[in-house]
């Protein structure tokens, strides 16, 4: 009992819990867009390409969060827009151009980071440190959440149209291109808030896993956003507590928890679980077998009642 409540008595743990809840929610929330738009690779590239931006931002503005923020944003936009330009103006496809640009950005970042001798070590950048979140980090995350969530809520209708079918959305006057760039901008903001806590390598799991899990549980885009956010926030906080109780690394704990929940949904989701479907197929078969044994088969190819037009 004492061990269970112990983490709540430390100020650094409370701060980390607060940070995990915000960052987990934010990632799970915007992750729905990434999963439905199939941008996981793009998101992966963006997390890596933030590195040189952070280094240059530090070089120009010091550790001020705003400077780091604009540096990261510039680097991410360079990679995102650059890969689009290359893929649209040549035969190179977008995943290829993206891979080239983001590894270039990452390489430049590694060199820059050693040259400028910033307090951001490579290890910190790669794996993050939830327990080291400062008050200003928390305020930054909170501010980012207060920008990202209201914008997504306000734009939910055009977003839905654009996610479902960009071609049709465009034909009905939705500014699909602008909407995509805006969402990528919001994604970069989310990543900046996340890197401090879990680092480049694990950020993607925090972003994708909650909404992928919810995707297996619901048929509503709206629920994917909100339930993804809640799942992300709760799992990140729970992962943090688990890491404290069992003395494990925090970031990996969170991602493993999220991944475990995803696998659980994959296997046992009531509607789309692999095991559920296996079980249900047998059930359907038995049902039709019983029906078939009870009455003689109906004449084939007759339109069923719901197919008939008055």
């Amino acid at each position, binding site marked *: 009992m004492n061990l269970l409540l112990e983490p709540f008595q430390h100020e650094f743990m409370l701060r980390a819990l607060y940070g995990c809840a915000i960052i987990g929610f934010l990632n799970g929330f915007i992750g729905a867009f990434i999963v*439905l738009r199939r941008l996981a690779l793009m998101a992966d590239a963006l997390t890596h390409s933030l590195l040189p931006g952070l280094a240059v931002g530090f070089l120009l503005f010091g550790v001020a969060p705003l400077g780091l923020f604009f540096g990261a944003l510039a680097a991410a936009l360079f990679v995102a827009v650059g890969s689009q330009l290359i893929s649209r103006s040549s035969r190179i496809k977008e995943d290829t151009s993206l891979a080239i640009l983001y590894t270039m950005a990452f390489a430049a970042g590694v060199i820059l980071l050693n040259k400028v001798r910033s307090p951001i070590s490579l290890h910190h950048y790669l794996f993050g440190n939830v327990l080291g979140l400062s008050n200003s980090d928390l305020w930054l995350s909170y501010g980012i959440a207060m920008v990202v969530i209201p914008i997504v809520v*306000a*734009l939910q*209708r*055009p977003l*839905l*149209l654009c*996610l*479902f*079918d960009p*071609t*049709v959305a*465009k*034909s*009905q*006057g*939705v500014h699909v291109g602008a909407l995509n760039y805006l969402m990528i901008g919001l994604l970069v903001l989310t990543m900046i808030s996340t890197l401090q806590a879990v680092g480049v390598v694990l950020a993607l799991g925090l972003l994708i896993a909650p909404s992928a899990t919810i*995707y297996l549980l*619901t*048929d*509503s*885009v709206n*629920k*994917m956003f909100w339930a993804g956010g809640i799942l992300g926030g709760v799992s990140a906080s729970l992962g943090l507590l688990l890491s404290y109780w069992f003395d494990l690394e925090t970031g990996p704990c969170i991602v493993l928890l999220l991944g475990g929940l995803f696998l659980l949904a994959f296997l046992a989701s009531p*509607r789309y679980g692999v095991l559920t479907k296996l079980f249900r197929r047998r059930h359907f078969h038995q049902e039709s077998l019983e029906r078939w044994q009870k009455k003689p088969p109906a004449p084939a*190819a*007759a*339109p069923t009642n*719901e*197919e*008939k*037009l008055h």
Partner: protein
Amino acid sequence: MISRHAHPHAHHELRVSDLTVSYNRIPALHHLSFQAVCGQLIALMGPNGAGKTTLLKTLTGLLKPETGTIFFHGRQVRGATTDFAYLPQRENVDWDFPITVRGLVEMGRYLRIGWAGRYRETDSLAVQAAIEKMQLQDLQDRQISALSGGQQQRAFLARSLAQEAHVLLLDEPFTGLDEPNRTNLAAILRTLSASGKMIIASHHDLSSVAALFSHVMLLNGELVAAGPTATAFTPETIAHTYGTQAFAGKKHA
């Protein structure tokens, strides 16, 4: 076939003049001019590369014409408009998308009320009416992949009804449907055109045109023939369109 000359919605006219559309300066459609009236059920026919999809995309505002104008209802159409609804080919739809039939139909209303407008009771009623008209009441809570091919077409038609589109542009609606579903969809399209919708559908199967459509438009990079099926869909125009005399389908005298 019912004559549509004296149709009550005859003033709803689509007038396309001198339309040329190019991809990278290479024209796919040359100086196309035609008129169509709401209530017509038009088959858009022609060989591959004839410009069928190009025309549909231009009408929906996805492609910019190089020359020419499109007038609907006496007003010039430039780019996107909610008066036109484009129904994508079935293989271009992500059927695993987390949405139910009702959610899909509601999308049609979102186009009407915009991104900030309130979703009112009238919107909900319009959605319900569209669902009922397409006989999807019992299926409205199903996810869209749990529908048959014909039901999927009806769900998209219901969306365009909720959108209150006047012109329905369909890309190969009959492709991949089995016989009962074809008959059913044909009946639905006839009902819709009788209620004043203009329907333009690209179509491949020469033998079923006369049974399914009231009008045809034959394309071959340029307009070959357009008009009522009985007069415009003749062995001569077909041969001209497809560039061959070896037409094995039904003859139309």
